[in-house]
């Protein structure tokens, strides 16, 4: 999706509330081929009940990430292309062009 285009479609509505709950490093792996991941192993009745009423997907990654770019990704930035993390000499880091 083109974020700049989408921003033009967003209606200001400060009465609706959105919560993004990030469980850092949530994704995992089984420790043996037929095993479960950490999340699949966990006893999570509340998450499971909510998922029964939710839609899901896997967020693609492809690269093993460092830290800051991931937080920006969850807020709509593309970690590789959208954000410059190094400002000019003597300047400050900020969004890229």
């Amino acid at each position, binding site marked *: 999706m083109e*974020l700049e285009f*989408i921003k033009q*479609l*967003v*209606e200001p*509505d*400060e009465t*609706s*509330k*959105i*919560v*993004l*709950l*990030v*469980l*850092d*490093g*949530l*994704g*995992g*792996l089984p*420790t043996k081929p037929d095993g479960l*991941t*950490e*999340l*699949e*192993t966990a*006893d*999570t009745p*509340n*998450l*499971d009940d*909510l*998922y*029964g*009423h*939710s*839609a*899901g*997907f*896997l*967020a*693609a*990654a*492809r*690269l*093993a*990430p460092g*830290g*800051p770019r991931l*937080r*920006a*990704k*969850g*807020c*709509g*930035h593309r*970690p590789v292309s959208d*954000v410059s993390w190094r400002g000019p000499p003597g300047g400050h880091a900020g*969004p890229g062009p």
Partner: protein
Amino acid sequence: MYRGVARLVGMQALGHSESVAHEFDVLEQHWDDYDFFFVHLKRIDSAGEDGDFDRKVARIEQADVHLPRVLDLKPDVLIVTGDHSTPSKMKYHSWHPVPVMLWSENCRPDGVKKFGERACSTGGLGPRIPGADLMPLAVAHAGRLEKFGA
């Protein structure tokens, strides 16, 4: 670092994380002040980086305990996900895709009874979407995205 990134994308950082419970205290205290909340629980990742499978499981379960506090606030959209994968068997951040669940009155439920990586791999919004597309989906499910080309 987290506070700096939050400011970079236009958010205000609230309070200091003293415990998992305190993060939800802060959410409740500021519920009337903002329309978007980013709640970040760090300790799950730390357990993965330590290679401690059981502790990572326990910390996911700890987060689960507090989920009803968020639901009691009656958000219009609630997304639960990770920022990346940290498999405890690898002890570091990995490239594996991350499970995401999106709840709203306007979502089309998958009807799956267990939240997990493999369940989300067949999810109704997927199978795989760039993480940067998460916010447009959130805004749309909040009823705040106009039709385009109308």
